[in-house]
């Protein structure tokens, strides 16, 4: 068995063949997806970027608090009514896999915070809003990546590492399938041969039985006729002998 070196230790049954086939399919899909490993690298980068952006945004909010001379939190929370900044979700086709992406957009003509910072610090408030808007855009971008990752993750779970799947799991599974197939064929042939043997033996047995039966029947008939001969035939035989008339 040439594949014996590199295959999994399974019993060659139809069930395990099915399992192996499913595994191969999973490994191949996962393998294709893992080639898009860069998504995870981008997540990592985007998360770092988010850290910086949020820090800058927090700083600009501190500026606002200082300029306004008090906390604007309560006022902002109370005046928030309708979202100006919204997102749109669409699907993007990344080599055959549909990944959702978020896209941000601003709805026109609604401004919940027209009065915030009206007294003083208006400029800072304006700047802060812009900074935060940019920060949220970064967040939306990151959320897209992350959602893509979550969806991919469900598919990828089957395999751990790209190298593993490319050089180990896939050939190994293929070998195992080949092995199971050859074993199953072998079993089929053996089974066929066995069945033929059984059939032969059965035929032989039946023939022997038939012969025996016939012999028995013959013997019985012979016995019966012998008995008849012993009882009634002598007369007939005698008559026949007697009927030997000469004209």
């Amino acid at each position: 068995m040439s594949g014996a070196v590199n295959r999994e230790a399974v019993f060659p049954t139809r069930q395990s063949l099915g399992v192996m086939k499913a595994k191969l399919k999973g490994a191949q899909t996962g393998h294709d997806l893992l080639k898009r490993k860069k998504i995870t690298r981008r997540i990592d980068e985007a998360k770092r970027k988010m850290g910086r952006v949020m820090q800058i945004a927090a700083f600009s909010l501190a500026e606002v608090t200082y300029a306004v001379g008090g906390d604007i939190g309560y006022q902002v929370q109370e005046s928030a009514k309708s979202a100006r900044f919204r997102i749109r979700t669409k699907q993007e086709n990344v080599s055959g896999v549909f990944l959702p992406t978020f896209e941000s957009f601003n709805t026109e003509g609604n401004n919940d915070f027209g009065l915030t910072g009206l007294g003083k610090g208006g400029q800072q408030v304006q700047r802060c809003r812009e900074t935060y808007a940019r920060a949220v855009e970064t967040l939306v971008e990151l959320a897209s990546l992350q959602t893509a990752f979550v969806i991919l993750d469900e598919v990828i779970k089957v395999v751990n590492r790209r190298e593993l799947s490319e050089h180990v799991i896939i050939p190994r599974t293929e070998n195992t399938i080949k092995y199971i197939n050859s074993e199953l064929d072998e079993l089929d042939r053996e089974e066929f041969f066995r069945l033929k043997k059984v059939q032969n033996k059965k035929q032989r047995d039946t023939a022997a039985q038939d012969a025996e039966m016939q012999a028995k029947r013959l013997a019985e008939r012979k016995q019966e006729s012998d008995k008849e001969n012993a009882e009634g035939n002598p007369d007939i035989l005698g008559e026949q002998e007697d009927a030997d008339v000469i004209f």
Partner: protein
Amino acid sequence: MAAPASAYKDRQFLAVIGDEDSVTGLLLAGIGHVTAPPDSQKNFLVVDSKTETAAIEEAFERFTTERKDIGILLINQHIAERIRHRVDTYTAAFPALLEIPSKDHPYDPEKDSVLRRVRRLFGE
């Protein structure tokens, strides 16, 4: 692998669970939304040291499961820590859950549920 359109079509808002500063900033960016009067629901929750963990969990549940109009949920990392078990077991694609840093708590990639999953996946 295409998710059904119904899973994301109407999700056009962001939601926040965060400390006062984070929420204020994000609201200034214009993400704040209150739904129509009968059961006017806010899409943000301000958490401070006095907020009960149960209240955070409830908000988390509401934003992730009940409401179908939220596409992205932002949560301060130090608040996510308080309900870490919930965040860790959350695996749905929509809404996307994003841990963000706050002013007093800089971002720590080690704690992020998603980044941890990324690492585990590549055995790093």
